[in-house]
């Protein structure tokens, strides 16, 4: 399934999304995003891990992109709050975010995102969007 117009707008015309350098992947297994480590993502420079805020940003943008596809939105949804659990250190590498809709209500939508470094689950985020 190709990216829709709103998703392309977000990916190609949003400066901070370009700063991160994430890519959207659609396959039979569903929608996910990938982020390859860049020096500007660094959190702990001695251990060489992704910064927690970068991980949360990556997951939130993935959630927003996924919602734009699932709910056929014409513009970026508005995230009102998030909760993010850091389960394991995310060492510099390629990380993958896998979103799923927990609940799509009339007024609020809740998206959960699992972030993996290879096969290891490093973080889980939950994002609430107002319709």
């Amino acid at each position, binding site marked *: 399934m190709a990216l829709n117009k709103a998703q392309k*707008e*977000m990916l190609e*015309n*949003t*400066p*901070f*999304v*370009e*700063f*991160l350098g994430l890519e959207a992947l659609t396959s039979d297994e569903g929608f996910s995003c990938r982020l390859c480590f860049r*020096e*500007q*993502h*660094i*959190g*702990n*420079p*001695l*251990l060489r891990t992704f*910064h*927690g*805020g*970068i991980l*949360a*940003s*990556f997951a*939130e*943008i993935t959630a927003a992109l996924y919602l734009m596809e699932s709910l056929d939105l014409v513009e*970026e949804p*508005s*995230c*009102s*709050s*998030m*909760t*993010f*659990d*850091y389960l394991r*250190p995310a060492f510099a590498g390629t990380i993958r975010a896998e979103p799923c809709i927990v609940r799509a209500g009339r007024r609020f939508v809740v998206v959960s995102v699992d972030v993996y470094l290879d096969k290891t689950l490093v973080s889980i985020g939950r994002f609430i969007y107002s319709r």
Partner: protein
Amino acid sequence: MSDRYLTMAKTFFGTSHPLFNAFGVEVEEVGKGRAAMSLSCRPTLCDRHGGLHRGVVVTLLDTNCGLAIFSRLGDMRPIATIDLRVDFIRPVPAGEGIYSEVECYAVRGDIAYVRGQGCAYSDHNLLATVFGSFAVGTLGPAFDSAMKGEGKV
């Protein structure tokens, strides 16, 4: 926190750190378990409306939490976020900077607890709030060990 620690904090969060340098993070105040930081609007960090992206808000708040913990502990031993909760009250207006303040209000065993907020730099309008918990004394050397070794402080 002594002047020496303030200098170390400013050095760590300054231009030699690739992320903080790219963001233009400034350490405004540190002391008594509290810390304040700021950053100005930069085009590379914006959303499509010319305002700082909410990902930048989260990253600044998370960073500020770390500095508040160092202030409370009085040193820069390794820490790592356990969980973070951010409420986005308002989008950052176009061109506006952020001023964030975080307090580390409790440390119990290996966990430090923080709460704080980010406001618009010009009119102090509330933009986002943060609550979090951090693990204290995690993997790796102290954040200031490299700086001490290089004789930067």
